[in-house]
């Protein structure tokens, strides 16, 4: 064994960076491993986060923010529009600066950072626990010992599989997404998030325009392959661009694609001394596809629990069980509700979207909302369509 640490964190996304920062600040010998040379690249994310999603997990640093969101706009297939002001809605981040910033703080707190280093396996120990990880740095393979492994290796996670968790995602349980970063976006309100619903334009999902300051925006689409009948996200995004921009197509700076798994409950979060966080444990919100805030909270709580294990309950792996429990107590109810609501969302017709947006517009258009309870919004939207309420009652969570 070349080196020993208390905690090895695999993956420097939002989950891994905050886990490493939390562990290092608590005085644990921590190693953060990232396979790419640069943190935050390549990335496929619209970078939107709510105020609480960020600030409840880590004190806000304004240098991480590209745009302050104060307004939301929704458009239905027939052109019904809903727009309301929401001054504390949240932000569009620069995830590159955000994650690099958290990694820098972790290093200042004593964490060791190994970029350009891939985790290629876990070291099998007594059967009860893994004794470390195998790393590949360019051409050199070496082993590192540790007490706890935090898997924050994103949607492509292998660490959870090596730990014996079958995280295989059925094609019915995901969204497939594509996004362009554009410069010179026409009619861009720098404080407004735009959402477009249409079963032809974005089957089973939606399209978005998120501002990033200076006329730059993330413009993307998510579609559910289960209802898209073979149509792919990337060509559908091009169709949406013609719809949104007409002939005035802005300049693409970057083109990416990505996947959004459905929420899977707590079942992938823990195996022996491997704690699985963020996208690796499929902890996303199944309606909006948001995963940054859950990645942060799961990374933070996993590290806090690991610290408890190392400080007090060393040797007793049962201490680690409070990680999924605490996280589910914090986020589980809302995430399970969204998973249930997604099953209704996938069945919505364009007539449903038109009726819902029109009815909501009558109540909310031009209003200033201070707090929004997402569960309440879904309930209100469903109440506008009796046929959907009936469907909702038939679906079990």
């Amino acid at each position, binding site marked *: 064994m070349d080196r020993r640490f208390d905690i090895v964190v695999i993956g420097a996304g939002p989950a891994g960076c905050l886990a490493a920062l939390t562990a290092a600040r608590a005085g644990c010998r921590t190693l953060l491993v990232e*396979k790419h040379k640069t943190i935050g690249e390549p990335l496929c994310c619209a970078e939107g986060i709510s105020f609480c999603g960020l600030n409840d997990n880590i004190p806000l640093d304004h240098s991480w923010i590209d745009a302050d969101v104060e307004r939301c706009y929704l458009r239905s297939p027939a052109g019904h529009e809903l727009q309301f002001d929401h001054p504390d809605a949240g932000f569009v981040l620069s995830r590159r600066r955000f994650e690099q910033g958290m990694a820098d703080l972790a290093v200042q707190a004593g964490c060791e950072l190994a970029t350009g280093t891939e985790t290629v396996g876990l070291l099998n120990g007594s059967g009860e626990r893994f004794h470390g990880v195998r790393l590949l740095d360019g051409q050199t393979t070496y082993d590192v010992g540790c007490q706890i492994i935090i898997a924050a290796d994103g*949607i492509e996670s*292998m660490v959870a599989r090596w730990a014996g968790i079958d995280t295989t995602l059925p094609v019915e349980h995901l969204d497939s*997404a594509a996004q362009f970063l554009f410069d010179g976006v026409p009619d861009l309100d720098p404080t407004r998030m735009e959402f477009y619903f249409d079963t032809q334009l974005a089957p089973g999902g939606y399209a978005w325009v998120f501002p990033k300051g200076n006329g730059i925006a993330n413009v993307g689409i998510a579609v559910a392959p289960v209802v898209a009948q073979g149509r792919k996200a990337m060509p559908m995004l091009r169709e949406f661009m013609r719809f949104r921009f007409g002939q005035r197509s802005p300049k693409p700076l970057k083109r990416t694609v990505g996947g959004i798994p459905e929420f899977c409950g707590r079942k992938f979060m823990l195996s022996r001394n491997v704690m699985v966080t963020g996208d690796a444990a499929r902890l996303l919100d199944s309606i909006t596809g948001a995963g940054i805030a859950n990645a942060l909270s799961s990374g933070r709580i996993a590290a806090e629990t690991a610290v408890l294990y190392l400080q007090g309950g060393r040797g007793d792996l049962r201490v680690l069980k409070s990680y999924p429990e605490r996280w589910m107590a914090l986020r589980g109810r809302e995430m399970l509700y969204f998973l249930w609501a997604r099953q209704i969302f996938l069945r919505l017709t364009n007539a449903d979207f038109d009726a819902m947006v029109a009815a909501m517009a009558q109540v909310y258009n031009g209003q200033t909302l201070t707090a929004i309870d997402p569960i309440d919004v879904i309930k209100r939207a469903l109440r506008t369509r009796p046929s959907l309420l009936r469907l909702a009652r038939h679906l079990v969570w």
Partner: protein
Amino acid sequence: MPAAELTLDVEVCSECGLCVAVCGYDALVLRPTILEIIHSECVLCDACVVACPTEALRIE
């Protein structure tokens, strides 16, 4: 006719990892700058081809 095989268009792939998540046979690994296909494990089930948001994967 040669046996069918899963092929990757590296120009089109943006290394997002979605195909890795849907493969139940550990036949795909997202290395730092390329998606690796382990042909000996692949059963040509088509799941990754359907999930990929672009046209990077093909069975031909």
